[in-house]
Each structure stands twice: as structure tokens, then as C-alpha cells.
């Protein structure tokens, strides 16, 4: 029996490990098989090709990484025409099983989001959508939606009415809000199937000798080890406020980190920055979790959200 069997809403997966959008593309297929993943989340696609932000775009700082990529991508039409088949091909396991592909996308208006979804609905084999309303590195797409509960509700309601019900509708949340549970509730009421959290945390770095910013755009999104406690708290908090299953991420770099997020209430976890610090992080986490659950002789589903219960019973 596969002790790591889990699901994210209607999305059945062989294991609970996926990747944070934008940190792990098909290029990783050059050094490892990709069908070990529970699912793959693509880099965020926008309606038109996007050139991205001026470099420097990344800067490594205390315990983490700042980035300001700016959603550089080839645009939806090119993604569908030139890229998506490569994903399906590399995500096919030797036994013919298709690892679920989740397409992350973002637009500047409800109309843009809806048009993108309509185009993606025509592509077979897509398992779900991650609605990116939380990118801190672009002006129009991204976080301008994700901080306003009403805008989130209206957007998700519209997308929910247009998507086929067998595709998982995931909304990706930002930690850069006053109350993340309000945004989570708006997404839930709008008809989301599950929530992904957290996107990166606003951050910046300055050269102490010149006063210049290390990222050309001035600020960016902070990720990696340092944000793990922030992510964990947000997951824990949202897990109590919503019935929706959670895809958790933020500083996960090994199996013990992953366990913490399962305890906090995650049904799946995503590896992000750790894909850069250890290209094999996903494979290693899977291997180590399998070993752990085998040795303990328990199932992943036995521990999901357990911390929430422990705290409720005063046994934390």
C-alpha cells in the first residue's frame, strides 16, 4: 500500500510532492526523471509573451533568496503550441501513468483570466489550474488582485463558472496581506477547490557601500529557509479557517520540513527555492518520506492537520 497516497481536492496524486511555480521547469528533465513528482506546476503563463524585469533579478541574502523575475514567459498561445506537449511527454511514467500537470496562469483583468481559462479548457490532459493572484514582481497581473477579497471572489466565481468541474481550481495566496484568511474565504466562496500558499514575501537588499538596491526593481519576493516559519503559520491559520485542501510551500528543503507542513494542515507540499540549492530536493524528500512513513507504519493522511487538533485539545 502506498502510504503517501493523498489528494488535493479532486486531484489524485501518487505522492504529495510538487514544485513551486517558476522554480522547476522541464529543463530539470536533463538531470532527473520528472515522473517522480506528485504533480508539476508550470511557471506562470500570461496572455501575451512577457519579457520580465530588468536584471539583476536575483540576489542571495541571509537565509534565503530575493527574486524579481517579473513572470518572463512565452505567452499562452506559444505555451499551448510549443511547450505543453513536452510537459505531457516528460510527465509520463514508464508504466504509462500521467503525472498531473497544473498550469499556473495570471492576467491583468477578470476578462484576461477568463479568456486564458477558456483557451486552456480546450487543451486535453490538463489536471488543474493554479490561479496566480499573488506575484509580488509585476505591476498589473498578480498581487493587485490577491490583496482584495472582493476582487478575488469575483475573479474565482467567473473562472469557476467557465472551467470543467474535473479540473482542480487552485488559488495561490500571498502572505503580503493583513489577514490571509479573508482572501482564503473569498476564494472558497468564489468556488475554488483548493488553495496554494504562500507566495514569496516582500523583501529587499541594499549595498551598504553605495546605497544601491541589489535588485534592479528595488524590491522583490523573498523565499527559502527564512520564510518557513511565516509559511507554516499561514498554512496553520488558513487550515483552521477553511475546509479547502491546501498545497503548502515556503522554505521546504527536506522531509522534516515537509512533515511540519502536513501537521499544520497541508495535503500536498511544493518545493521551491530548494530546487536551486539542491537540484534533487524533490526526489530526496520523496525517498525520505517513504522511509519515514514505512518505519512508523502510518499513512500521510493520518497526520494531516494533526497540529490543529492538538492545539484545540490543549495537547500541543
Amino acid at each position, binding site marked *: 500500500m502506498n502510504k503517501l497516497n493523498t489528494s488535493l481536492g479532486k486531484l489524485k496524486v501518487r505522492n504529495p510532492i510538487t514544485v513551486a511555480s517558476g522554480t522547476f521547469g522541464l529543463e530539470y528533465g536533463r*538531470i532527473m526523471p520528472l515522473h517522480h513528482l506528485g504533480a508539476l506546476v508550470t511557471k506562470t503563463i500570461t496572455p501575451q509573451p512577457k519579457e520580465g524585469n530588468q536584471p*539583476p*533579478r536575483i540576489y*542571495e541574502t541571509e537565509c534565503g533568496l530575493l*527574486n524579481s523575475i517579473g513572470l518572463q514567459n512565452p505567452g499562452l498561445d506559444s505555451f499551448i503550441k510549443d511547450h505543453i506537449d513536452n510537459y505531457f511527454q516528460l510527465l509520463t511514467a514508464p508504466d504509462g501513468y500521467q503525472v498531473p500537470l497544473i498550469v499556473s496562469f495570471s492576467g491583468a483583468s477578470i476578462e484576461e483570466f477568463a479568456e486564458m481559462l477558456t483557451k486552456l479548457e480546450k487543451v486535453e490532459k490538463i489536471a488543474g489550474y493554479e490561479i496566480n493572484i499573488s506575484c509580488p514582481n509585476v505591476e498589473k497581473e498578480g498581487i493587485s488582485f490577491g490583496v482584495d477579497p472582493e476582487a478575488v471572489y469575483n475573479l474565482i466565481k467567473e473562472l469557476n463558472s467557465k472551467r470543467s468541474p474535473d479540473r482542480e481550481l487552485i488559488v495561490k495566496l500571498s502572505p503580503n496581506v493583513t489577514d490571509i484568511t479573508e482572501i482564503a474565504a473569498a476564494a472558497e466562496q468564489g468556488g475554488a477547490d483548493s488553495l496554494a500558499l504562500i507566495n514569496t514575501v516582500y523583501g529587499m537588499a541594499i549595498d551598504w557601500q553605495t546605497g544601491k538596491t541589489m535588485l534592479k526593481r528595488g524590491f522583490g519576493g523573498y523565499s527559502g529557509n527564512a520564510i518557513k516559519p511565516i509559511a507554516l503559520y499561514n498554512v496553520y491559520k488558513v487550515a483552521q479557517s477553511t475546509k479547502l485542501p491546501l498545497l503548502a510551500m515556503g522554505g521546504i528543503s527536506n522531509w522534516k520540513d515537509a512533515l511540519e507542513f502536513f501537521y499544520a494542515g497541508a495535503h500536498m507540499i511544493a518545493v521551491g527555492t530548494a530546487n536551486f*540549492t*539542491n537540484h534533487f530536493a524533490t526526489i530526496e524528500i520523496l525517498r525520505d518520506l517513504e522511509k519515514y512513513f514505512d518505519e512508523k507504519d502510518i499513512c500521510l493522511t493520518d497526520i494531516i492537520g494533526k497540529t490543529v487538533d492538538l492545539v484545540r485539545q490543549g495537547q500541543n
Partner: protein
Amino acid sequence: MKDLATTEYSIVAVQKINTLNSCYFILETDALKATPCPGQFYLLKSKEKEQGLHIPISIYHSTDETLKFMVKIVGEGTEELANLKIGEGLRILGPLGNSFPMAENKNVLLISGGIGYAPLFYLKEKLERLNNSTIWLHGGRSKDDVFPADKIYTEDGSVGVKGLVTDSILEIIEKETIDTVYCCGPKGMMKHISKLLEPSNVELYVSLEEYMACGLGSCMGCAVAINTKLGRVYKTVCNDGPIFDAKGVIWDE
């Protein structure tokens, strides 16, 4: 996507560390299966280091048994590499990126500044096998930044000609009827050479550098602005580069 089936991730042993001076050292490790091409690079970091990005280092010398990297200590990451002990494990991913287009039967000029010396050392060896005639100009701030070449320049005049490596390249190109120039060094130096050669028909290839995360072309972190037939686009140093035809490089970003 180009065929990089030969890119490997492995943990190899440090064979030797040869300290050149307070800033520069040569790190020797076990070889991987694939032979790198001149201009390609590897991502390196200590096996013991769990967090933190890898350091991209270009190939300096390669044999069937060993890989050699010439490294300049510029920050924590390179300092950690300098402190590795013989036999210690090194995480290594590569070879990565594209490589210098190889001239054949040509008059070739190599120009390096500081640690830009490393990739040109490997390039020169391969160019000479292709029956090219090479001249190598190398410059640095002081004698500590200088390694064997045909002509040496230092800013402080402590060794070689006092001045910049760029000072007399137009004369040399004309006198030696140079066809192709290969260049690696600080951005300002490469930009200057690119402007100098703009009016000429001499081919110029430069090796660029940016902060880098994944090394595979996934994260789009190490972007540089390049003019293409389709207009100005951001290319990745790690996968589209690090070698670019200087004509396309937009230097003023």
C-alpha cells in the same frame, strides 16, 4: 532545447587545491563522464553545505581524470570553495551552458581581465589544436591578477605594461590581421572592447556573468538583454549563454 543529456549531477572528491596567491586558487576534482567544451561552466558547492546557491565556475582545464577550476575569492561562496580539504565531497552539476564557437585556421585574439583568464586558458588549448594562431592579452589591477599570457597589462604597473588591456587592441588586430576575438572579463572591459570593434568585421565573442540560481534555464534569474531578429529579449546566461556574440549584447541595461 539543445541536447545536454551529458549534464550530470554528482558528488566528486576534491583532489587538490593549488593556492596561487591571496585571491586566486585552482581547484582540482574528479572528472565527470562528459568532456566540457571551452566556455562551459559547472555549478559547485561543498557537499556539507545544505542551504545556499551553488557557485557557477567556468572550466579551466579538463582531462579524462580531472576537472580544474580557477577561482577568485570574491565572497562567501568562493571562500568556502577555497577552504575545501583534499578528499572532501563537492556537489557538482555540469557541464552547463553553451560554448565558444570554435575558429579554424584563423588568427585569433584572446583578451581576458582578472578571473576572465580561466575560460580562455581552456579555449586557447582547443583553438591551437584547430590550427589557429593565437595572441593572448591579459590585464588586471595588479601583479596578483596576472597569469602567463603573450602580453600583460596592470593598472598599477606592477608587472607588464602599465595600463588597460584594451589600450592597444585595435593596433594589434590590424597588425596581426585578427579574424576572431574571444573575451572574458569585467563587464566594463567587455563593453569597451565591443564598442571598439563595432565598426569592424572582426567577430567578437564574450562570456557573460550574472547572479544565477538553477543553472538549467528554468528560473530565468540570470537574465541579460540581447538583440535578436525578433527584437530585444532577455536570455539566460546559464542556458542561452554564457557565450554571446557581442553584436547582440545590450550593454547599457
